[in-house]
């Protein structure tokens, strides 16, 4: 390989990408969209729909309607903000006599017509704590099954009342029962570093020996930082590698490919593009991580991002760009038009989006067989192994090492196969090949 030519291609790719307005815009826009959407969700979650909820109660037990009506009254009085406007929906119960068959039959239609928000039906035996099987359930009918504000409130009211009545029937003071059944809190602690001299002796507070220096778990360290690092890799890979597909298709459509091939081999061209893309990706990641590190330092979390994690982030970005970049280059070279590329690039897209579907499961149980398996799967390694390295407990060294070996092998295979496709595809015009044809190009001599 003539490295000088690779260098020329790489620097040109880099300059072409970085010197555009689009790059600057995407640099600023992407975090804006990500944080903006997070902010929007929080904002929307706080916006409560205060439409009054009229609902009908068919109380077969005959004991609960009054309780519900009283509780609704109290709720409605409390649900008014300082400005006199309701800050929560008003609950407006209506009694339906269970023996009034026409009214009972009409009630469903009233819900459908929107006159009522819901109907609940309370069974006779609601107060009877059955000894075997499921206790009788309240039935809640609504046209808005996903809006659970009213359902939750009703459930709580009925349950509190029924529990009180049952305790009373059993001769237990409800206040005493509540005191006795107060839950014990649980503080989530992380383990202190083992092996320090103090940890074995410091049990003055009656703590388990060796755990004296434990700190309370900080979700910023255990969830936010690993997630941010992983999403930096994700964002960077998603913004840079698909550009390779565009660049190859542009060269094919504008008939530049053959001009280039008069000066450079397909493999050199491909490597130049990949290296250029790595540089763009690292620049982006450097800017994002740098800014993030600044924020972290400001908030006192600088120590939560140790240098080895930053190095791992960089290494995984390089690997991911080579892995996905070579796939995009292969797809791009095989197609003559952008629309032909759409179907061929779907699998690559899905592979590179894999972490989005499973990162939550991995961070909740980083040592579970699923998490270990996923983080060793090469296309997911750059995201999920990084996540595991940053999470608690960190991935064992041998797993990190194994994942690096596997991913390196995958990168070598992808670059090799892509080079074969690239070589054939670059001068090919016309119909896009199928996956079977692509496989034939790969195994061709």
């Amino acid at each position, binding site marked *: 390989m003539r490295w000088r030519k690779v260098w020329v291609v790489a620097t040109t790719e880099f300059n072409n990408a970085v010197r555009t307005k689009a790059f600057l815009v995407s640099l600023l826009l992407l975090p804006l969209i990500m944080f903006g959407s997070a902010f929007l969700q929080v904002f929307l979650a706080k916006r409560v729909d205060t439409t009054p909820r009229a609902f009908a109660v068919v109380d077969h037990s005959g004991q609960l309607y009054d309780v519900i009506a009283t509780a609704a009254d109290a709720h409605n009085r409390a649900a008014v903000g300082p400005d006199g406007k309701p800050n929560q929906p008003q609950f407006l119960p209506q009694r339906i006599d269970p023996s009034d068959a026409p009214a009972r039959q009409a009630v469903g239609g009233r819900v459908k017509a929107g006159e009522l928000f819901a109907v609940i039906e309370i069974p006779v035996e609601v107060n009877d704590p059955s000894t075997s099987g499921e206790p009788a359930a309240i039935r809640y009918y609504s046209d808005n099954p996903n809006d659970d504000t009213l359902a939750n409130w009703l459930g709580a009211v009925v349950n509190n009342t029924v529990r009180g009545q049952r305790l009373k029937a059993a001769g237990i003071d409800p206040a005493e029962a509540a005191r006795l059944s107060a839950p014990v809190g649980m503080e989530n602690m992380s383990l202190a570093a083992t092996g320090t001299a103090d940890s074995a002796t410091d049990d003055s507070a009656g703590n388990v020996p060796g755990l004296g220096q434990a700190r309370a778990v900080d979700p910023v360290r255990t969830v936010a930082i690993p997630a941010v690092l992983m999403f930096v890799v994700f964002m960077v890979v998603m913004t840079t590698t698909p550009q390779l597909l565009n660049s190859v298709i542009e060269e094919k459509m*504008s*008939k530049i490919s053959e001009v280039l091939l008069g000066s450079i081999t397909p493999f050199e061209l491909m490597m130049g593009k990949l290296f250029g893309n790595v540089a763009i990706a690292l620049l982006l990641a450097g800017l994002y991580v740098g800014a993030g590190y600044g924020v972290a330092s400001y908030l006192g979390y600088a120590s939560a991002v140790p240098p080895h994690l930053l190095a791992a982030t960089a290494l995984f970005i390089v690997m991911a760009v080579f892995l996905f970049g070579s796939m995009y280059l292969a797809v791009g070279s095989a197609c003559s038009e952008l629309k032909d590329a759409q179907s061929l690039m779907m699998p690559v897209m899905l592979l590179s989006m894999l972490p989005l579907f499973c990162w939550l499961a991995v961070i909740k149980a980083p040592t579970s067989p699923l998490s270990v398996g996923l983080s060793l799967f090469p296309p997911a390694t750059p995201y999920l192994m990084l996540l595991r390295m940053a999470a608690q407990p960190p991935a064992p060294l041998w797993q990190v090492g194994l994942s690096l070996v596997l991913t390196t092998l995958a990168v070598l295979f992808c670059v090799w196969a892509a080079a074969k496709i690239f070589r054939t595809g670059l001068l090919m015009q016309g119909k896009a090949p199928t996956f079977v044809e692509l496989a034939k190009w790969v195994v061709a001599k």
Partner: protein
Amino acid sequence: MDAIALDGVTKTFGEHVAVDALSLRIPRGTLYGFIGPNGSGKSTTLRMIMHILLPDEGRIEVFGDSDTRSAQDRIGYLPEERGLYKKMTVRRLLRYYGQLKGAEPAALEADIPRWLGEMGLSDWIDKKVDTLSKGMAQKVQFIGTVIAKPEMVILDEPFSGLDPVNAEVLKDAVLKLRDAGTTVVFSTHDMGVAERMCDRIFMIHKGKKVLDGTLSEIQARYGEDTLRIRTDDGIGVLRGLPGVTDIRDQGNHQEVRFQGDPQAILHALIERTAVHHFEVARPSLHDIFVRIAAPEREVSIHAMA
């Protein structure tokens, strides 16, 4: 030493034999014209010389070296289907093409404005490529081919689609290159250009070499078997003349292939019409090309005559 030597080179695509056992020598410093109908194997041959395609059989040497890839940097190549990066400026594009050929950046900084000046494009140096007209873009492409001072340039259809003024500018540039010692190989469909410019002409047809030599060598093979005739009555009066085997109408004059005595034909013609021009000539390259590439056409005219 030859700039290019091909020995028994064959290239097939599936069932189709694109180039068939082709042998060819192109001496250094010559201006060599490749002619041949569409699909005859011209571009495939050029691509093999450029190491873009590899031959199935045979041997290719460029500047005496059978590793054609290592010779790539010494050759400027303008493919038939060519393009430019639309969003790059002319300067950055030429810098890229030059550096890919191994030119030194410092030399390029001086050569780019000089070449653009010669082509009348100085004002466009920092403009984006998509603002150029088609002719301008084609000249920029040519500069991209020669900017790294190659020892040989291979130009696939360099003049196609150019207006006469731009075509002249480019032809002058090609001739200057040849005068400076650069070997020039170009393919063309314009037989007039090949006749006027080339030292030697090579014709390929259905993958095989059918002509190779200087223009007069080639014409000598066909002898003086052609008459150029201009009369009052055009093509009509030529039919049925004794010894005439083929008539080709060129509009204002007709070209006639004949056997036997031209004087007899002239006598017969004068009896039919007023003759303004009567010339015994060698066949033109165009004529030779058509005789080789479309023999069936001759048969039909022959039958008509």
